[in-house]
């Protein structure tokens, strides 16, 4: 559905996007993660036909973004939530949406229905006749999401949809994106919010000018380390450490009364560990598994580059 091959964009001497290749299937939710200035917004602008690319090829639903008549077709089936909401402060919420509905070639009836539908869904229906200038940041963000959906697009590009939102509104928007996922929309999501990416996305790309890693959230997490076991003791003594050092284990770290141990095969290694500790007189309070988070994966991958 969204296909980029060797995509590169330069601004003068600065390369903002370097040789990016990826493929997103219909109905997939793709999370594009990366630090500030990574080139996420630039990529999104190229994919939506807003700015040109320096090199490479991009196809959206089979259409070529650099072809002028294709680009118009792409824009009809794509909805965009840009980084800056860009609403008209002097117009009411309803008029803002109606204006965009017209430009997206929606009929009068479609506009009326869709505006009512989305404003109600996002909790803005009561405010439909209020000037957008009087809206809070979060309300504007929600209105901009409604605008992106006004023509019922197949593909959605969302640039940090929950930035500016309080926890409750973030949840509204996140649930809303999950509903869109149910409707089999293809979604390309720029975000800094790892937790959000993990909850919503089928596939994640970690990007910093170049694509550093790509996979399902689980694949990325597992790429960091396979397994760690945390054992909490009443007291960590030298005898215990010595006993553990005699075992063939790769990595042991201690913090307070906790031992964090890399284990390659937990089912086999954990009983051996526990026996060794007890043998050395240790009193075990908890044995838990430490799973890597997407954040661990993200930080490791992004830092590896620096």
């Amino acid at each position, binding site marked *: 559905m969204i296909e980029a091959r060797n995509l590169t964009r330069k601004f003068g001497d600065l390369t903002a996007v370097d040789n990016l290749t990826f493929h997103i299937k219909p109905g997939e939710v793709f999370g594009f993660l990366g630090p500030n200035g990574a080139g996420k917004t630039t990529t999104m602008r190229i994919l939506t036909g*807003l700015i040109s690319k320096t090199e490479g090829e991009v196809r959206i639903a089979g259409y070529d973004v650099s072809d002028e008549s294709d680009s118009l077709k792409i824009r009809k089936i794509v909805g965009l939530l*840009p980084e800056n*909401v*860009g*609403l008209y402060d*002097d117009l009411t919420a309803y008029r803002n949406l109606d204006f965009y509905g017209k*430009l997206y070639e929606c009929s009068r009836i479609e506009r009326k229905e869709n505006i009512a539908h989305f404003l109600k869904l996002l909790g803005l229906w009561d405010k439909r006749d209020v000037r957008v200038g009087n809206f809070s940041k979060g309300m504007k963000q929600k209105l901009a999401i409604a605008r992106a959906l006004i023509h019922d697009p197949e593909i959605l590009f969302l640039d940090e949809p929950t930035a500016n939102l309080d926890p409750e509104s973030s949840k509204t928007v996140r649930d809303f994106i999950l509903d869109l996922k149910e409707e089999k929309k293809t979604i390309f999501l720029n975000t800094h919010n790892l937790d959000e990416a993990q909850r919503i996305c089928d596939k994640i790309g970690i990007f910093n000018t170049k694509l550093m890693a790509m996979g399902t959230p689980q694949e990325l997490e597992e790429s960091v380390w396979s397994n760690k076991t945390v054992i909490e003791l009443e007291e960590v003594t030298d005898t215990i450490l010595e006993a553990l050092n005699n075992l063939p284990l790769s990595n042991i770290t201690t913090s307070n009364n906790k031992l964090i141990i890399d284990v390659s095969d937990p089912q086999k290694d954990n009983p051996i560990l526990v026996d060794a500790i007890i043998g050395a007189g240790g009193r075990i309070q908890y044995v838990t598994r430490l799973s890597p988070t997407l954040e661990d994966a993200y930080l490791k991958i992004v830092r590896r580059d620096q």
Partner: protein
Amino acid sequence: MKLWKSWVIATKDFNIFLKKKRILYTLIILPLLISVGLPVMLSSMDNPIEIITLLDAFSYFYIILAIIQSSTLASYSILGEKIEQSLEPLLATPITDGELLLGKTISSFLPCIGVIYVCSLIFMVLSDAVTYNTLGYLFFPNLKMAFILLLAVPLSSILSIQLNVIISARVNDVRTANQLGLLLEIPFIGVYILLVTNIATLNVINVLAIIAALILTDLAFFYLNKSTFQRDNILTKWK
């Protein structure tokens, strides 16, 4: 080109204009005051030569008025979009750069021309009424004024709009844009001074020369603007 899309953009701008007091003042009150005030001034004069000099100069003044009006409207309509950061969602809709530029041109052009036609009509009728006794004939309508209203005023309005596209690409507040837009008036005001002081006289040939100059500068600006008003440049170079 889908002209109706340009019209959708233009009507959206009209709605915004109606909510700005400063625009309404410049657009309606100012030309109305001038169109009524100038004939009132003429009513107390009795030297036919002086009256004709001033009537010519005032006729010409509508060109300057068209520049002021269009500049005010264009700076709101084009720079306004840049300031509100609405160009990105706008360009993401299925419109072409040309449709957008046409929409922006219509929204600055039509109100300006409409107001000038109405006000100049008031001016001509009132002027005839107060000068008929002294001159012995009706000064308006005349060929010069026809050329001014039908050609020079629209052409200067378009020139002013085009200049504002270039300015909008480079500045970030409406006031600066207006001040830069006023630079365009300097040569026109120079001519106006020559006319009121009777150093130059306005005749059909002069008016046609002004029109020719306007056509040439309009074309030059059109050529210059082609790359300025192009989506990639709008989103990456307009700072």
